Structure formats: C-alpha cells, structure tokens
C-alpha cells in the first residue's frame, strides 16, 4: 500500500468536509474531556477516602507524647499500656462492635505516607508524632454515638471520630457529579458517532466516482475503505488531543493555579499529575478507535466494495 497516496486522499477528504470534520472534532473533544473528568473525579474520591474509609466506621485516637503537651484531652500524658488494655477489654464487651483493628504509630505513619506521600507536611513527620488508634467496625454504623459516649474524655483517649459522617455527603456529591459527567459523555459520544456516520455517508457519495473506478480496476476492499476510516480516525484523534489539552489546562487552572484549590484546601489530597497523565493514552486510544469503528460500520452500509 502506498502511504503517500492514502495520506493525500485523507487530506483531501477532510478538507472537502471541513464543517463536518469540525463538528466531529468538537464533539469527540467534549465527550472525551467529560470521560477524563469523570475518571479523575472517581480517582479523587478514592484518594480522599484513604486507607481506613471503607473498612471502619469509628476511630478512637489515643494520646501520644506531643499531644500530652498541646491537647487538653491528653493533659495526663500519653496513653499507657494499662489504659489500652482497658479500652480493648471494654470494646470486646460491646455487642455493636463487629471488629477492632489496632493501628500502631508505625502503621499510622505508613498509611499516612501512602496517602499524602508527596505533600511537604509528610516529609517533616516522624512515626512518634503519629497517633495510635483503634479502628472499629460496627454491626450498625448508625450507632456511632455509643462508642463516642463510652470513650470520649477517657484518660489516654484524644478523640473519637465518626469517619463516615463527615465525608459521606461530599463523596456522594462527587460520585453523582462523576456519574452525571459519564452520562453526558455517553450522549456526546453517541452524537459524535452519528456525525461520523453522516460524514462517511456524505464523503462516500461525493467520492463514488473514485471508488467506482477503484472497484473496477481491482483495488481491495481495504484499500477503498482505508481513506474513509483513516479520515474518521484522524478527526477523532484531533478531538482526543484537544480533550487531553482541556484536561491538562482544566487541572492546572482549578487546582494548581487560577482557582488554586491546592493552596486553599491544603487538607485535601488532590490526585497528582501522574494520575492525569496516565489517563491520556487511554483517551487518545478511544479517540481514534471509536470513530474508526463507526466509520467501518457506516461504510458497510454506504459504500459498495
């Protein structure tokens, strides 16, 4: 196959249908931007959930040495071995407790590193600054209050936290946002595919003389179809590249600069650039495979080979 010949056919074809090509590029770009956004939103939610979120309902944080100086709840010093034993014994007796996991300072340090590894705060932390904790799974997550009343204010206990309550609403909202983005993406993608089918039909019609001659001199079906399929794939790829640019700019202006969410919301662990960049090949792959496939099926209907 002569590459140069095929390339020139593609160029001519794209130019001939400039308005259609533009529509395809824009709709592919928008739909894949939404797809990338939705995937990144999901990543963000799971990054924020951290290590314990899906595993436990309530956490009892114990006093450490530095808390003893700074936190009034820990005025009597760091937690002792006896106090810990008492807490475990008490938890064992409570029927609503399903499971208890002890997180040592070293464990806490490890999990923190995993979640916030690249934040400047993490670099200065040492394991003995971390809090020991008991992570508790309840038979009934709504009964968090029972644990709170039993352990809040006890010696050696710094605080009792219901982890889900605080973040559940936010996560539900982010989840819905991501689902909405996916739904919109699906609609846009269908629109993009229909546009491609239509583009192929128009260009198959406008080139019927060429394809008719190709058929009669014995060009293979693949050779006749390739320019149409490549046209759609190239238009899609341009759209996909645009989507990548949108995503990169979008992240840059909301999180890093512009709205600068990473400076305003320092406690939130935003998904990193690597999470975004690793999605881009996927988006590019979809951007030319889907249109190529749509064109292929359109050709079966509109182009006799």
């Amino acid at each position: 196959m002569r590459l140069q010949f095929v390339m020139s056919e593609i160029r001519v074809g794209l130019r001939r249908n400039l308005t259609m090509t533009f529509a395809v590029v824009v709709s592919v770009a928008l739909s894949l931007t939404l797809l990338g956004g939705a995937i990144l939103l999901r990543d963000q939610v799971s990054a924020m959930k951290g290590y314990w979120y899906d595993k436990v309902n309530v956490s009892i944080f114990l006093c450490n040495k530095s808390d003893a100086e700074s936190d009034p709840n820990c005025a009597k010093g760091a937690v002792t071995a006896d106090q810990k034993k008492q807490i475990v014994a008490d938890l064992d007796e409570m029927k609503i407790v399903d499971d208890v996991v002890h997180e040592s300072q070293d464990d806490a340090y490890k999990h923190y590193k995993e979640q916030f590894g690249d934040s400047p705060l993490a670099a200065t932390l040492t394991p003995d600054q971390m809090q020991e904790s008991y992570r508790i799974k309840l038979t009934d997550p709504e009964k968090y209050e029972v644990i709170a009343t039993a352990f809040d204010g006890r010696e050696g206990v710094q605080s009792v936290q219901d982890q889900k309550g605080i973040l559940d609403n936010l996560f539900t909202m982010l989840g819905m946002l991501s689902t909405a983005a996916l739904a919109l993406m699906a609609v846009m993608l269908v629109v993009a595919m229909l546009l491609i089918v239509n583009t192929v039909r128009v260009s198959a019609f406008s080139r019927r003389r060429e394809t008719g001659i190709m058929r009669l001199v014995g060009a293979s079906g693949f050779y006749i179809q390739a320019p149409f399929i490549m046209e759609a794939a190239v238009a899609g790829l341009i759209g996909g590249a645009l989507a990548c640019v949108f995503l990169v700019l979008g992240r840059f202006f909301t999180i890093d600069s512009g709205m600068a969410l990473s400076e305003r919301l320092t406690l939130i662990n935003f998904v990193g650039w690597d999470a975004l960049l690793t999605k881009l090949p996927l988006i590019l792959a979809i951007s030319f495979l889907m249109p190529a496939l749509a064109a292929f099926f359109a050709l079966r209907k509109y182009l006799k080979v």
Partner: protein
Amino acid sequence: MIRFDNVTKVYPKQNRPALRDITLEVERGEFVFLVGSSGSGKSTFLRLILREERATQGQVHVLGKDLARLSNWKVPQMRRQLGNVFQDFRLLPNKTVGENVAFAQEVIGKSRGEIRKSVPQVLDLVGLGGKEDRMPGELSGGEQQRVAIARAFVNRPKLLICDEPTGNLDPQTSVGIMKLLDRINRTGTTVVMATHDQNIVDQMRKRVIELEKGRLVRDQARGVYGYQH
C-alpha cells in the same frame, strides 16, 4: 476466457429474467460485439462477467474461475485482470490525464517507479503521448475516451470490457477508437464490446452475439449488426 453455461439472471422484484438460459464461450484473443436493443440484457451480461451481479442459475466462468465460487475477497484480484471502458469515459475531472491513468495503478499498490514507466508508455500506445499533464476537460471526447482506454489497459488486462465506448462520439472519432481497440486486441487481449453502432459492427466483421429480451438469438462469426429493425 469467458464461459456461460445455461445462465439465467433474475433481478429481485422482477418477473421477467434479464437473461434467459445463455450458453456461450469466448476464446482467448477474440473480439466480440454484443448487440441488441436497450433492455435486451447486454448490461447484465457485462455485469455478470465483472461479478457485479451473480447468476441466478447456471455458471459463469471468467479466466478459468467459477464466479459463483469465487469468495468476495478474491474478486479484486480477478478484476485486476479485466479492463473497463464506458460510454461516459468516467475520468476523474480534478486529476490530469497522467494522474487518471496512474490512479488505476496506485489503487492496486503498484510502485511509483513502475507507474512512472508504464503511464507514458500506455499513453503513447493510445496516441496521447505528451498530453500527460492536460486536464480531461481540455480534451475532445475522442481523446477522453483514449485516456479511459489507457487507464483500462495500463495494468495489461487479459480481457477488456467495453460498454458502448463510441456511444458519445461522432463516426469519424469512433473509427479511431475502434482502430485502437483492434490494436489492443491484436496484442492478445480479449475484447468484449457492447454497442449500438451499426456501421462499426458491419465494418469490423468480427464475431457478433445478439441478445433479445434476455435470450441469445444470434451468435455469428464475422457477422454484421443485424437486420433493420
């Protein structure tokens, strides 16, 4: 070269067959006129040879292959051994004469060196040497048909199928085209030509096959166009 065995073709949604029980054979190197009034089945006959259509009954053999058994993906290979010339030339108006001829080679993946060699050669053969860079619109009808013949012949087909190649040309020009086709025939290429041109058929004295309402009514060596209708 071509063999029809009891071939019948019925188009869907039509009661009357376009071809009825046709049996004939065309040998390698023959020149055959296909005559008959409009609707007599000439086009269907040619379309069956090209495997644009398949016979409803009977067998069509072209170049030794049973077209009914030829799988779809092998059809292009078969068509590379056939050349086609039409009444309306079917040139690409936005390509030059040379590009039009080269197109037939490009789309079957011939190398550029090969194309550069064979295009001027075949244009010389059809009498258009040096007109490579002209656009088809600048040429006369006869010259355009010569370009079309060059395109059909550039891949050196074994069989040339012409559907009323002189239908749009004046008698003088038609004679020129016929001389060209005769020369191509003498190189060993089989030519099948559907025509309404009585003068040409009478002058050439080649084999004549006449169809009428889908039936083969005459197959005559060194024949004439027929009786006055």
